Structure formats: structure tokens, C-alpha cells
């Protein structure tokens, strides 16, 4: 591509460029800017200002024209994003519509995207569980993927660093499978969940049940007031954007914080075409950006580049960053870029009812749930499949409204709801095994609206996933039965990969440049001034909700980059 704006080169030059303003990009930008680096944050979507651009945040249920339901035509036109649980009348403006950014599905893959300031951090489920060495040592122990180049002790301080700023509500549960962190007061389990917890402690001592650790402010309010954020108000309307800043998003927290340093510039509507590699200098020198609206091409330059475009888009950018030195994509000497993509298996769930605890109910709304950390194959291999699953748990007192009849009888019934049984449910979060056969590539012919090759996604379940689904349902059914749960129903919805919104890998970390793309500091082995710290860097997936780990990698790598720049090593 012709360098069209050489005259403006100086004003287009920064110390650092961060591609993507979502969960991980917000952290990269914050850490780089706080350390004094003149940083440019590129966001391909529209600007969303905290509070100001949350148009539905204070609407009452009856103020939504369709009471929250998405319109028929919208669903018909958006079969992919329409399947996302969070895509509702009050949130649909934060999701990318199917036709806005086409991609090729060689096998079904629901790619759920949010292009705006903060990306999908506005929309996430806010569960933040640390990894332990049972997770980092997984590939080495069980012989898949490659060994992670780090262990828990390398990253624990960075988990703490991130958690303090984010605000994480949780209990110090003392579990070696799920290390404790920097916690604010925990939310309460419901009576049903507490009963289930106690029953499991008796029946299955190795299967603890805890309250979820979630990115909500429940204490230390003065500290978070410095960020302009207040405590969680339990509205449970998080995906509209929170006017209190009660939950963490890049939009409410890292980006405003980085802007306050005076070292951060944000450019919206900036689709990154590729990273520029200078053959003579043997380093990346900048990025090519296409304006999402005008389609004009511009270049920006920096000494370090953080790729935080979101796992799939990060793969896309690197694959599209070709040069004489890297004809197959930036840093792709071994041909593994785009391979070993994995995700979380969310196919299965179970529900039932419980006849006891009739004297209790709950009060208010809780933006959180119970959590059962991985117990399967944790300390040794126990089954005929590899790895295991974590599980969500929820137990709520049902309220029954009698809807029979018509006329005054019906009306009377509607106004006299009664308490029903406790309803208890769980869903699986399974680890999937990264494989060379699960990959993304550039389509040789099809282009997106910005002239960039479309991403071709080829990601499938395998036999290991099917066995794990069966085991989850079997184990969980047994656990429910031991707790006296009745009317148990199980489901395997066979959803496409991607709908978990935990897509990972393609640019994995590892010790050996022959078998991995990134080193232990998230630098491309072959181009060390490019860092990848979003989900694309994941060597394996384990079972924990991954955002906390991406944020941790971002903060850790950004501080390393700052140190290396000071040492003149980058």
C-alpha cells in the first residue's frame, strides 16, 4: 500500500498504539498512558461516552415499546447476533448487526461483536475467576497444545493489580483450584443455593459451591469514587450500560482513567487494515487504518503496538499484515497463526425444582450467580475425556401467576400471585482442546466493506466435547438428586461455537518460536514490538470466564513494554 500521508507523519506518530478499546485494549491503554507513553487508542466502532450514551439505561419495563422483545424483522435479518442471550430491545444498539461485518462460516460459528468505545466490555457477564496452576499446567500435564510459558506465580501480582482497579466482589473461599483475589464484600447466595452448597459439602467434599466473583463494586467506595464510579445498585440492567459505573467496563473505568493522564488520544471509526512492518528496520512501525465511514486510508506510527482487537479480529489483522519478511502474516514464521482456536462449551444445562425451604424468599435483584469451580480431572485424569468444566448455579423462589380463564376471574388471579417451589438451574462452561484443525484464515476472494479480506472461520466441537457434555449432565443430575431436587430436566442445545463469546487462540503463547507465536510477555517471537494480549493469546482455555485473564495479561505486558522501552530494548 502506498504511504499516502508522509507529510503528516510526525503528527501521526505516537509512543504506543493500541488496537481495540474493549476489555483488554482499555487496560493496555490505561497502563501505557499512566506510564507516560503518548498513546493512540484505535476503535473501529462509534464513540460511546460513559452514562451519556446509554440511551436505555433508565427506562422502566413499560417504557420499552415491545417490553424488551426484539422485533421480528431484526431477528430475521440477524440470525447470528439474534441468538445471543443479551441481544434485547434495550441493548441491541451495542451489538454489531450480521450484515455490518460479514465473515465466512466454514462451519457454524456465531461471532458476537460490539463495535464501540469499550467494545463488548459493556455487554459482558462480569464473572471474574482467576486461573490456578491446575489450568496453566493443563496442556503440559495432559499432552495437548503447548506448555504455557508462565505459571500462576508469574501472573498473581498482576491479577491483584487488575482486580483492585476493577472492583471484584467475592469471598475468600480458600480453594486451590480457584485462587482468592483482592475482594470486595461478596454478594449473598440464595437460600436454595446455600442449601445446595451445604449438601454438596457433605456429599461431594471436592465439589465446592461458591458465590460468583463478579466485577461489581460492593465496598471501598471512596477509592472507586476517584474513578467516578459508584457502588453496584443491584439493578441487574448491566448490559444497558450502568449510570453508576457499578460494574466494570472499559467505557466507565480504564478509558476515562487513561484520558485523565493527558497521554491518551482515541480515534473512533478506525478499522485497522494491517500492521506496517519495515523490512530494513526489522520491526513494526505502525498501522494502516481505514476510516469506517469515508473509507479513507491513513497510517499511524509508534514504537510499540498492542493488538487488542478481540480474538478473531486480532487474528484477522495479523493474517492481513503481510510483508516481504512475513508473507503469511505478521510473526507467522511457523505457519501456526490462526490455528489452535478454541472456545468454551456452553451447550448443556440442567434445571429442576425443590420442595423445601418454603418459608424463605429472596428480595431484590442480584447481578451474579452461584459458581461451581472445575472439579473434573482436576488433580489427576479420571475420565475418558480430557479436562473438565465449571458450572453456573442459580436457585430462585418461583412466583406462580395463574393465567387460566378470561374476564374478572383471570384479572383477580393475575393480581394474586403465589409462591411456587424453588427453581434451581445450572449451565456448563467446558474447556475445549485447541487443535490445528480449528482455525481461522483469510478468504482469498471475499472482502468486507472496508476492502479487507473476510475472516473464514472453521471451528468445530469434537468427541471430547460430546463426552464432556454427557459427563456434566450425568454428574450434575446426580448432584441435584442428592440434594432432593425434583422434576429435573437436562438439555444439550448444540449451539454453534462462538455463542459462548469466549473465542480464544490463534496467536498462542509458548516457549518455543517453532510452535507458538507469542512469548511469555505476549510479544510476537518474530516481531517483539508487537504485543497481543486479548483472547487470541490463549494457549488453552480452561473453564474460567476469560476477561480477567486478558486484562491481567494486558496490564502485565504493557508494564513490561514500558520497562523495555526505558531499557532501550524495544
Amino acid at each position, binding site marked *: 500500500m502506498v504511504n499516502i500521508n508522509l507529510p503528516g507523519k510526525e503528527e501521526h506518530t505516537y509512543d504506543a498504539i493500541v488496537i481495540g478499546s474493549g476489555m483488554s485494549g482499555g487496560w493496555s491503554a490505561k497502563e501505557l498512558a499512566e506510564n507516560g507513553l503518548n498513546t493512540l487508542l484505535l476503535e473501529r466502532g462509534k464513540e460511546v461516552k460513559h452514562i451519556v450514551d446509554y440511551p436505555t439505561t433508565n427506562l422502566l419495563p*413499560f417504557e420499552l415499546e415491545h417490553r424488551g422483545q426484539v422485533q421480528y424483522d431484526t431477528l430475521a435479518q440477524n440470525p447470528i447476533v439474534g441468538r445471543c442471550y443479551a441481544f434485547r430491545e434495550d441493548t441491541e444498539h451495542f451489538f454489531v448487526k450480521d450484515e455490518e461485518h460479514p465473515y465466512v462460516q466454514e462451519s457454524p460459528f456465531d461471532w458476537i461483536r460490539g463495535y464501540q468505545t469499550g467494545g463488548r466490555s459493556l455487554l459482558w457477564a462480569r464473572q471474574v475467576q482467576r486461573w490456578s496452576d491446575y489450568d496453566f499446567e493443563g496442556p503440559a500435564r495432559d499432552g495437548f497444545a503447548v506448555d504455557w510459558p508462565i505459571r500462576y506465580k508469574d501472573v498473581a501480582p498482576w491479577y491483584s493489580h487488575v482486580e483492585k482497579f476493577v472492583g471484584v466482589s467475592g469471598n475468600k473461599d480458600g480453594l486451590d483450584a480457584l485462587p482468592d483475589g483482592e475482594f470486595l464484600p461478596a454478594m449473598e447466595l440464595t437460600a436454595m443455593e446455600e442449601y445446595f452448597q451445604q449438601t454438596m459439602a457433605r456429599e461431594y467434599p471436592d465439589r465446592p459451591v461458591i458465590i460468583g466473583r463478579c466485577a461489581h463494586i460492593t465496598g471501598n467506595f471512596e477509592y472507586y469514587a476517584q474513578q467516578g464510579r459508584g457502588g453496584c445498585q443491584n439493578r441487574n440492567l448491566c448490559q444497558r450500560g450502568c449510570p453508576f459505573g457499578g460494574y466494570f467496563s472499559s467505557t466507565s473505568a480504564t478509558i476515562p482513567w487513561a484520558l485523565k493522564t493527558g497521554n491518551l488520544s482515541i480515534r473512533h471509526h478506525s478499522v485497522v487494515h494491517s500492521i506496517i512492518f519495515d523490512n530494513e528496520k526489522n520491526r513494526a512501525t505502525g498501522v494502516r487504518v481505514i476510516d469506517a465511514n469515508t473509507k479513507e486510508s491513513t497510517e499511524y506510527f509508534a514504537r510499540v503496538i498492542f493488538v487488542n482487537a478481540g480474538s478473531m479480529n486480532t487474528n484477522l489483522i495479523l493474517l492481513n499484515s503481510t510483508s516481504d519478511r512475513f508473507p503469511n502474516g505478521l510473526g507467522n514464521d511457523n505457519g501456526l497463526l490462526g490455528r489452535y482456536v478454541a472456545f468454551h462449551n456452553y451447550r448443556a444445562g440442567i434445571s429442576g425444582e425443590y420442595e423445601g425451604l418454603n418459608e424463605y424468599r429472596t428480595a431484590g435483584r442480584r447481578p451474579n450467580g452461584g459458581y461451581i469451580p472445575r472439579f473434573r480431572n482436576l488433580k489427576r485424569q479420571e475420565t475418558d475425556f480430557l479436562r473438565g468444566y465449571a458450572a453456573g448455579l442459580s436457585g430462585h423462589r418461583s412466583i406462580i401467576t395463574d393465567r387460566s380463564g378470561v*374476564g374478572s376471574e383471570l384479572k383477580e388471579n393475575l393480581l394474586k400471585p403465589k409462591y411456587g417451589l424453588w427453581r434451581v438451574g445450572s449451565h456448563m462452561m467446558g474447556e475445549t482442546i485447541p487443535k490445528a484443525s480449528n482455525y481461522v484464515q483469510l478468504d482469498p476472494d471475499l472482502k468486507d466493506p472496508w476492502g479487507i479480506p473476510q475472516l473464514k472461520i472453521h471451528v468445530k466441537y469434537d468427541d471430547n466435547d460430546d463426552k464432556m457434555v454427557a459427563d456434566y449432565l450425568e454428574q450434575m443430575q446426580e448432584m441435584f438428586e442428592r440434594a432432593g431436587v425434583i422434576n429435573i430436566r437436562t438439555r444439550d442445545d448444540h449451539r454453534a461455537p462462538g455463542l459462548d463469546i469466549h473465542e480464544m487462540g490463534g496467536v498462542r503463547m509458548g516457549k518455543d518460536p517453532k510452535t507458538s507465536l507469542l512469548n511469555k510477555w505476549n510479544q510476537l517471537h518474530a516481531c517483539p514490538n508487537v504485543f497481543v494480549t486479548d483472547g487470541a493469546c490463549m494457549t488453552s482455555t480452561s473453564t474460567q470466564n476469560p476477561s480477567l485473564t486478558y486484562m491481567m495479561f494486558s496490564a502485565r505486558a504493557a508494564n513490561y513494554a514500558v520497562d523495555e522501552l526505558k531499557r532501550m530494548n524495544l
Partner: protein
Amino acid sequence: MKMNRREIIKQLALLTGGIVLVPSCDFSRKEVVHAYNKFELSEESKAILEKICNTIIPSDDQHPGAEELAISDFVLVMIDDCYSPDNQKRFVNGLQRFDTYAFEQTRQNFLSMSPSHATELLQNILDHPPSDDQDAHAEISNFEDVRYLVQTTKNLTIQGFLVSEYIMTQVMPYQLVPGPFQGKVLLSENEKINING
């Protein structure tokens, strides 16, 4: 676009004194048309739908019903925007056939029926066992559309009623900021249950 059209119809209705006249050859059938994005309804059909809603949830001394809460407008917005073309067809066909069916069953037009007769008719339609008569396809499918109309209108009327400003502010208040969550609260005797609590 969608809202615009509805808004235009509303404004036209204001300008023309509440109705929008559409040229028609058959004035005897009162072809005054209410246009939605996906379908049109005659004045009579609209009146029938309103009465179905008002029969499903009537007004009384204590609480307003479907009429005061303008539930039939909500029903039509939902059918227009959130239902498939096939289901819209069934709904509109059911509505067009409704009065003929009512007359066959009761020898009365629905609009002139007493509230108790209207209630009974709706209940009978909902309770009607599915037919296994293979020879009367057209009739059965027309009745099934009538039943679909009544069942769908009932579901939407209940939703519109329970998720109305009146219920959610006066009867079972919904708090945007509900206060702390408690997982284990002892029930008190004769506790009034708030489905929005």
C-alpha cells in the same frame, strides 16, 4: 420508518377527526382502515379486537382494565412488529372471521354481546377441543385462526396488563434501584407478593 408510519397515521387521525378514510367500493361494510406496517384493519375489526381485550381483562371498581390501559394498541404494535408474516396472517384472518364465528355460535354479533356472553364465547373458543374432522379443512383452519387470535390476544393482553405503568407503579411497584439483594428472607404471614419486587 416503522414508527413514522404509525405516527403519520396517528396525526392523520387527528387531522381528520379521529378516522382515516380510505376509498372503498363497499361502504356498507364500514371499510374505514387502520393501517399498520404489515397489515390493515377495518374499523369493525379494530373494535372487535378492543372488545376481546376488554373482555379478557375488564375494568372494575378497584383496577382499570384493558380499555383504560389501551391494551389493544399494545397488542397491535406487538403483532405488527414482533410476529412472523405467517402468524400475522393467522391473526388477521382470525379477526376477520371472528364475528361470523361468534354469530354462528350465539346468533349475536360480538360487538352487541353482553359482557358475560362475550366472556363465555372467548372461554369456549379457548376450551374448544381440536377437531379431527378431515373433511372440513377450510372451516377448521378458519376456526383454528379464530382460536389463535383469541389465545394470542389473551397472552398479549396479560403481558400488556402486567407490564403496564399502572401495575408497575400502583399495584406491584418495580423499583429501578431496588436496594440490597437478600438471598434468604423469612416470609411473613399474609405477605403481599410483588412479582416485580
